[in-house]
């Protein structure tokens, strides 16, 4: 019983702390990071939590090393995470790509702040939406979860571990300074199923094992060092036996499986929130913290007789395209409200199938988009018809 609220299982929690606790609850036993505002509380909380449960906390020399050490720990067989913010996320990109290519599960948290460069370290922004999709070089599979509340941070961080382990790929958890530092009273969701999800380990005869031969779900079982498989792991493009190849048909097969495993498992990956979209004339697309403002705006617009709705992708990448199309089928307008100069809007313009007019609502002044901003834009687009 919480003395403040009188509710069962509720706690007062900061977003970053919820991220740390969600990770531990999901079975994370390794964290490597480098201090950076506004994500440092994730590391600080894990520095306390992990050794107390027999896990490892490492403060590395930089974000490149943090990403590498996280992957190294996961290659050893334990659930591992790193967390950072803008500049640090940029530094992680090369090794993040290694994790995607060599298929090493891990969770990477990016608590966004204003950019470019050092930008606005203590102010919120959503300028890394496209970096999470295209940050590392080459074609690569991407899963990004974008929670919109402290409770969701806890839950989606735990879910990120499950997806990452199951699909053998890094999963990015993306939120921003305002959510990272927000303190809310939350009821901690049960994440036991996420904790139980562990990767498929190679079993059977080592002679028969092909480290990069995907099962029906596109995911190859992983060999744990010490189990007798003695496999090779490489960032080079590899054949099914794990050794480098340049044979076009082998390269093509690997790339198809690598990119395909995300599409193949979309039912598992997809998640979104849709509010009053069914008959909505105007659908606001909003991510993370902006979803909160949009929810309030939709309620007030409905009260004023305007048919507004909200579509909030919780799984940002792969974008929940089919669900988005269904939810916006009736709309004449789509407003993409984002705390950047226009990133998600490109995806929306590409995936929408109808004649909806797409308008951007953008703020990049370090201030979250407010319900007032959204209502104003809705009225503007309707007024302009």
């Amino acid at each position, binding site marked *: 019983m919480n003395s403040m609220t009188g509710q069962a299982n509720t706690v007062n929690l900061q977003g970053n702390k919820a991220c740390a606790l969600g990770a531990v609850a999901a079975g994370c036993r390794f964290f490597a990071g480098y201090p950076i505002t506004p994500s440092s509380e994730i590391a600080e909380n894990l520095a*306390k939590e992990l*050794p107390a449960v027999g896990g490892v906390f490492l403060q590395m020399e*930089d974000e490149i090393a943090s990403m590498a050490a996280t992957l190294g720990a996961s290659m050893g067989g334990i659930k591992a995470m790193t967390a950072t913010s803008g500049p640090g996320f940029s530094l992680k990109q090369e090794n993040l790509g290694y994790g995607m290519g060599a298929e090493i599960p891990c969770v990477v948290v990016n608590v966004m702040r204003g950019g470019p460069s050092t930008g606005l370290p203590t102010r919120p922004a959503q300028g890394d939406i496209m970096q999470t999709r295209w940050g590392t070089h080459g074609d690569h599979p991407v899963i990004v979860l974008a929670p919109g509340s402290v409770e969701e941070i806890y839950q989606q961080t735990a879910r990120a571990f499950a997806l990452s382990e199951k699909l053998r790929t890094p999963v990015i958890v993306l939120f921003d300074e305002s959510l990272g530092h927000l303190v809310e009273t939350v009821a901690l969701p049960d994440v036991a199923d996420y904790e139980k999800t562990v990767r498929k380990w190679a079993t059977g005869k080592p002679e028969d094992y092909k480290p990069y031969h995907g099962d029906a779900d596109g995911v190859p079982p992983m060999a744990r060092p010490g189990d007798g*498989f003695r496999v*090779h*792991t490489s*960032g080079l493009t590899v054949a099914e036996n794990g050794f480098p190849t340049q044979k076009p048909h082998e390269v093509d097969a690997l790339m198809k499986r690598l990119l395909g495993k995300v599409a193949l498992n979309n039912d598992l990956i997809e998640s979104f929130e849709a509010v009053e979209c069914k008959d909505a004339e105007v659908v606001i697309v909003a991510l993370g913290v902006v979803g909160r403002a949009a929810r309030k705006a939709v309620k007030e617009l409905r009260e004023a007789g305007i048919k507004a709705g909200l579509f909030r992708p919780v799984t940002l990448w792969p974008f929940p395209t089919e669900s988005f199309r269904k939810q916006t089928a009736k709309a004449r307008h789509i407003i993409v409200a984002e705390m950047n100069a226009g990133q998600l809007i490109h995806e929306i313009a590409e995936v929408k199938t109808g004649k909806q007019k797409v308008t951007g609502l953008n703020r990049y002044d370090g201030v979250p988009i407010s319900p007032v901003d959204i209502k104003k834009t809705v009225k503007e687009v309707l007024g302009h018809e």
Partner: protein
Amino acid sequence: MNKQVALKADDAKKTADGKEFNIRDYLRLDLFPHFMCPGCGHGIALRALLWAIHEQGIDKDKLAVVCGIGCSGRVGGYIDANTFHTTHGRPLAYATGLKMARPDLHVVVITGDGDCLAIGGNHLIHAARRNLDITCLMLNNEIYGMTGGQGSPTTPRDRFTTTTPAGNREPVFDACKLAEAAGAGYVGREVTIHLPRLRDLIAGGLAHKGFSFIEVMSDCTEVNGRKNDLGSSPEMVLGQTRTMRPPDYEYDSNVVDHPFRPSGLHTGVFVQSDRPEYGAAYRDMSEKLQQGRTKP
């Protein structure tokens, strides 16, 4: 008489179970022929490493070899063990995570002079400072071999490389001094011509509990040797005897340095200390916390 056979008979030490070293037991023979140019010193380093692993009686299943990118980084893939070919400059950071997660594994890092001292220099400093139980072999051929012979942080003065077309003017790193200053528990250097000595140096590193840094002076016959008229590969290897400074060598400023090697390059074990190993120190703290004996 075949010199190598003679060497083996003289120097082969046996493991506890009395089995003599056979390199084939430790290689992925199906990957042969290997990528190395004829006479490349990296192959000799690989032999020395495997021999040392044999002597130390390390189980291949419990051996993790983490490599960077370069010709040096490609060497690890031939070892019949758990091998990880990571990214350029970062193998020590990967190895740090792996060793902390899996203290039961023997973790060996194979890196190059560019990989370890240029792009990965910061990781070397911090791996040495942490003194985690990792054995790091830096194959120093004084060049970026894999990318076609550009200058590296150990390229000697006046050496011609594709990025020092008028001769190198940048000073070199002394990697062993760097590792020592940063806190490595075991530091040594050896040349490839003295295979048994190199083997013993590596074996000492494998046995040492803490961060072991071993600099192997290796010859890049192809993109370094040819460009600088350093002779055939046997000549290059023999040249090592004229330039190395064994442990008892007293530096004499009147001795003219051989152009192959930077001045005053000593070989041998330079550091062997009992500084606390980080993994054990961390686990001790963690155990106390788990038993509620220490406050976080």
